[in-house]
């Protein structure tokens, strides 16, 4: 099987989930590097070339706020969820939950249909 379609679909599926994961992780303030590590620890690898432009985009959309601050004798940019971001995150989580339920329901129905087909074939 050609792995390319799977890889493309996987990336497409992850793209939307990553936004949700980043918003969720930034309920607690952190800077880019620690955020990347936290996501990786939870199985959501994201390279810096994707993360930083995404953070900037979310900040432009007023879902995040950031500030440069000294930390361990170095200047780092800290991000956290804005009040708007908190609202959006809540709504997105509901949406995500609803999508998850729908997909599970479709899968369950398909499973029953397959089971019925197998039974009918006997």
């Amino acid at each position, binding site marked *: 099987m050609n792995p390319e379609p799977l890889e493309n679909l996987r990336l497409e599926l992850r793209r939307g989930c990553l936004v949700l994961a980043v918003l969720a992780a930034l309920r607690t303030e952190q*800077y*880019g*590097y620690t955020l*990347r590590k936290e996501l990786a620890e939870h199985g959501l690898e994201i*390279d*810096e*070339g*994707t993360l*930083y*432009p995404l953070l*900037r985009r979310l900040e432009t959309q007023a879902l995040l706020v950031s500030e*440069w601050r000294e930390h361990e004798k*170095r*200047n*780092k*940019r800290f991000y956290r969820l804005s009040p708007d971001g908190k609202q959006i995150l809540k709504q997105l989580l509901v949406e995500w939950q609803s999508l998850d339920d729908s997909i599970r329901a479709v899968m369950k129905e398909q499973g029953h249909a397959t089971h019925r087909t197998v039974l009918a074939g006997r």
Partner: protein
Amino acid sequence: MQLIERYLQAVKFWLPKKQQDDIIAELSEDLRTQIEERETALGRKLNESEVETLLRQRGSPIMVANRFLPQQSLIGPLLFPIYVFVLKLVTLVSLIPAVVGFIAGIISRGLGHVVGTGWTPPFGAIASHFWNGWFASLAVVTIVFAVLERTAAKKQLFEIWNPRKLPPLRPAHAIPRANSAIEIAVYLCVLVWWTANMAAPLTIRLGNLHLALTPAWSAFYWAILFITLGSATVSIVNFIRPWWTTQRAVARVLLDAAGGVLFCWMFEAHLVASLSWPSATPDKAAYAVAQLNIWLARIFPWAIAVTLFFTGIGVWRLIRTIRRSGARAMHTALV
């Protein structure tokens, strides 16, 4: 380490001026934190080749910078299919002067031959200007679409539409107009060349060899001319009404069959009247004529086989057209 500074400088070059310093500060911080972490784990400083590997993993400077830039394209995905369609159309239209130039060239050669002046009209230059015209047209179309992409007109183009104004359903067996256009151009060239060069009495010159045809050639000349005219007419009608009808399919089959019969007949018609070359004696020339006509007659069965093959293809297309027409009519009646 200088390698990191050079990398960041290269990334910075591609970033928008207003954001350059901010983005580079953040990327630099991320990169240094990663290096420090690696150095702590190894218990030593990273060497230059390890830093190089790390930078390679991050991607080329232009690729990294590109992710911070807004999505940019000269012509966006919405307009792109229309852009490609227009380019194809422009290419087709640009070909017309080239074809006209080509035909004019043939005519001028024909006139030169007949009148003996060697006069060549300047139409041939049109063909040589094809490339310039084509590139200029492509540039203009690209600029127009690039401007359209950046104006409100694009929105109107896609949002203001009426389902009732959509084109009518295409017939079941459409004929691509491009095919008909090419056929018309080819038939025009053949007609011009035929009338200018092949009229009876005909003498064909192949170097020093002169081959004269019998007066019977005149009948073949006119028959082929009429068949070509008929085929060109079918192509013109196909261009105007681009779908096969039973009548047109029958006409095309009959014309092809008539062409095939003529083609075969030519081998049996002993058309070669005389042959001459500088060292030829009358006996030798007469013998060569007889031999040539015998060999042409031997090709006759093969010519029939080729003709039957192509006529068979035509008949098969005709049957398919009639069957589909019937199915379509039945479908329309049922709907």
